[in-house]
């Protein structure tokens, strides 16, 4: 089944890299197909930004996201702007402290994680997106966890692999716990 994933946040949170990792994990290391589309625009500087990823066991024809089944949201602005698009029964994953999920639709499955805090605990706020990736892997099962780990490793700057792996694992574990409850 084709799954559409939308990731939103503001510039600097690693939104695009997140999409990249999911796509790479799925398509390079998990034998799936993935298509990622970035939202471009001359006015997109520094403000909210988003990425759309489609993961599918089959070749992907239509490349745009129309009604995402999974949404990863790291800022309030992105929450407000994007959640209306979420498919009925879709999964919403939020950064716990950045986003307060007002008026959340009943049909939505919502998970949240204090990724920024966890990242800060790890010593680098910047890896919050990797924490989110671990978490997402756990709660959605969309892409194989090992594939995701490989994708993280090749996608992050040289020398930061360990840190990022920790971040991923922390997020993943957090997610597993959430799922057990």
């Amino acid at each position, binding site marked *: 089944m084709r799954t559409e994933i939308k990731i939103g946040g503001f510039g600097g949170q690693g939104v695009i890299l997140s*999409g*990249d990792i999911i*796509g*790479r994990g799925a*398509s*390079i290391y998990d034998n799936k*197909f*993935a*298509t*990622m*589309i*970035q939202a*471009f*625009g*001359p006015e997109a500087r520094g403000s909210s930004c988003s990425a759309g990823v489609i993961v599918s066991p089959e070749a*992907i*024809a*239509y*490349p*745009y996201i129309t009604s995402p089944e999974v949404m990863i949201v790291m800022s309030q602005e992105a929450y407000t702007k994007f959640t209306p698009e979420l498919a009925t029964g879709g999964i919403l994953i939020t950064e716990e402290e950045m986003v307060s999920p007002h008026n959340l639709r009943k049909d939505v499955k919502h998970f949240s994680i204090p990724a920024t805090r966890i990242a800060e605990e790890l010593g680098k706020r910047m890896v919050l997106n990797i924490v989110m990736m671990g978490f997402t892997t756990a709660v959605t099962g969309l892409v194989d966890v090992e594939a995701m780990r490989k*994708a993280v490793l090749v996608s992050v700057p040289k020398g930061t692999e360990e840190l990022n792996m920790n971040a991923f694992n922390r997020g993943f574990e957090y997610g597993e716990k959430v799922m057990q409850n």
Partner: protein
Amino acid sequence: MKADPKGVLTGAHFIDGDHACSEGALAAGCRFVAGYPITPSTEVVERIAERFPHIGGIFIQMEDEIASSIAIQGAVWGGKKAMTVTSGPGFSLMMEHIGYAAMTETPCVFVDVQRAGPSTGLPTQPAQGDMMQARWGSHGDYSIIALSPNSPQECFDLTIKAFNLSEQFRVPVMFMMDECVGHMIERVMIPPADEIEILPRRFYEGAKENYMLYHANGEMVPPMVKAGDGYNIHVTGLTHDERGYPSMTVATQEKLIPRLIDKIKLNEEKIADYREDQIEDAEIVVVTYGITSRTAIPAIEQARKEGLKVGHLRLIVVWPFPEKYIRSLASKVKAIVVPELNQGQVVLEVERCAAGKVPVKLVPHVGGTVHNPKDIYNAIISSNNQKAE
């Protein structure tokens, strides 16, 4: 010939179409790129700029697109394979030099990552508005080849094909990407160098004394030499004889121009590249190219599900237009639907070749985004209702 491993980044990559195009060029043996930044094509040259110092090649950011489009031709005569990269407004500035390349039979590749126009338009959003320009944008009569990829993988594969075709026919090849394909990220498999077929430049091999720069020797495409080889060649955009000398007579013009056109036109079927999908039993065929070949799929599938006999013909080579094929297609089917991210360009050729045998329905789109498959679906349905009896 196999690709030079130096330029080949063998492996599976998750990259966008622009970067895949860069890798295709490197694999194809391109070692000179001149360009000028313009959204949404800039990533192509950015990656080239990063890669060349490690491979042995030159990227130069020229002062404008005019300079870029002629610098590559200097480089070709200097012995390199070369390309330039741009988008609509820059492509418009290159028109004079596309004509020069056609006239001087300088093999080179022009990449145009199409964005929504006209003019500055929507610089960061897709369209397929430059298709007729690619064919007709320079003054006078000439021929080119134009390819239209629909995925990053094809941006890689077809860039190589573009270089090969340009060498085979000594013709400028237009590589007509669009913003959506250029910025879309997908898996791109780059094979080992020894699995990549590269057409090396065909250099002259006969006796030096007998060499004539534009003597095609019964074939349509003369072999090349390069500067420094001792042939004292002369290259000009003036009407020229087989020695390459200006010869401003109608007789010379009559010898030269038809050859330049026929080497492409008469080889139309050889150059043609298209994908047929469920054409055999089709009553309605959707004719697409580039990104539209993907957005049409959900529409076609939906219609098929509903029992309509819909087929899909996707043009990979758009120019030369596969005239013969479309003519015969029009005799077989009952309607043709042509979705384009423009107000109707390639559809004119489809309609012409359909020659009234079947209705041809355009599904236009102003660009800025891709078609909603529903629009294509609706066109299929309405074509089904009015199809030729």
